[in-house]
């Protein structure tokens, strides 16, 4: 288990996040909900170490290996899919095997601009998994996908991440149904500066309460 303690986050003189503690248990998916602009992505960035690299955030034990699936796939456009993945995992057998797992076995030598957004997201998921992370952060990975593609991606995430006994995930979404389907724990970020205003295991969640908090 990994414990993350944030003393809060201030950006450009503005308090974005209050102190937050997060626990990452192996095999647990933690879904984070909240209105736009409440600091969900900032929290992910702080957990990943991309922002707030000072004493304001620390891991209780050793820092875990973190994989991050950004909202945009962030593949190197001038490298093929195979080259993008090989930068994380040089072993070609692993790369091809991972592409098969995300159901894209035949696009290894294509460039990212030849892929649809859904395919590019799956390649980004493959890259994330090739890192063999202890914790995976996902920032609204189904945004802007059409319904069938989003459903396909959700199934992949569930199979490859949520059902994996060792992988912890912090999953940011706007979609309550998505959170309830994928999450073992559901939390809501809100307030000013933002803090966790609600958190419960999925099977104990009060949907009415959640909808009220999210102003459905």
């Amino acid at each position, binding site marked *: 288990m990994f414990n993350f303690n944030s003393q809060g986050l201030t950006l450009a003189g503005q308090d974005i996040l209050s102190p937050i503690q997060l626990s990452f248990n192996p095999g647990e998916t933690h879904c984070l909900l909240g209105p736009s602009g409440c600091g969900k992505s900032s929290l992910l960035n702080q957990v990943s170490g991309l922002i707030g690299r000072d004493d304001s955030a620390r891991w209780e034990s050793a820092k875990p290996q973190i994989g991050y699936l950004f909202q*945009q796939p962030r593949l190197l456009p001038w490298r093929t899919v195979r080259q993008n993945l090989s930068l994380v995992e040089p072993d070609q057998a692993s790369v091809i095997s991972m592409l098969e797992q995300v159901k894209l076995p035949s696009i290894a030598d294509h460039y990212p601009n030849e892929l649809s957004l859904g*395919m590019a997201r799956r390649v980004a998921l493959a890259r994330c998994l090739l890192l063999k992370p202890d914790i995976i952060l996902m920032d609204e990975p189904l945004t802007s996908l059409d319904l069938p593609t989003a459903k396909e991606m959700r199934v992949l995430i569930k199979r490859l991440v949520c059902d994996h006994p060792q992988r912890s995930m912090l999953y940011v979404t706007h979609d309550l149904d998505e959170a309830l389907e994928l999450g073992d724990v559901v939390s809501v970020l809100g307030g000013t500066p933002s803090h966790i205003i609600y958190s419960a295991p999925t099977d104990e969640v009060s949907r009415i309460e959640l909808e009220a908090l999210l102003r459905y």
Partner: protein
Amino acid sequence: MRAQHFTDQVVAIVLLLTAWWGISFLADNALIPSPAVVFNAVVIEWQQERLLPSLSITLQRVIISFLFAMLIGGIIGVLMGQFKLLNRLLDPILIILLNIPALVVIILLYIWFGLVEVAAVAAVIINKLPNVAVTLREGGRMFDHELNEMANIYRFSFYKKVVHLWWPQLFPYVMIATRGGLALIWKIVLVVELLGRSDGVGFQLHLAFQVFDVATILAYSFAFIAIVQLIEWFILQPLDSKASRWQKGNGNV
């Protein structure tokens, strides 16, 4: 498409030669030689074994100056693009260097260090370096912040960042600086040679100028233009084409 491009270029060259021949025919003066006379001058210089050694020496100076100017100017430019403090510190110096006439730099270095090879090459480098720095500074400013974040998350080594992340983003700017650089550098090298060297194309131009031998002057000029054009066709364009392969893909698999 490529054949059409080639045909257009041939037509343009034929038109230019025709206009040149027409003007020289009407002028009927040795100071405006015809294309045939200039070609003959190329043959004579070749036969007398002056053309190739001169071109070779000038090309060496161009390449050495170009490599140093690109390397030093490129590093300074990228760092200025990345670090605002460095940009603020070096920007005034860059503006001064950009505005010092090339001739002044050449003369000063010859006065301070004598008519030696190092002074000649250094003068060319100092003249070209600020242009490279300004171009590459723009490249440094345009680094994709999101891809940098991705590279940090996925723990790219410094080598991987240089080769796979930064260099491809800089490449278009490097090509702009390269093309502009070659065009500018060889002109400055000729001035450097004309003023203070006893070999190279610039020196040959100096000799031809003393006897108003316009045909030889044009012969050396066209010979060097041909070399620069060969560099463009056989080095720069293939590099460009290879580096932009990824942009040709368009649409979904």
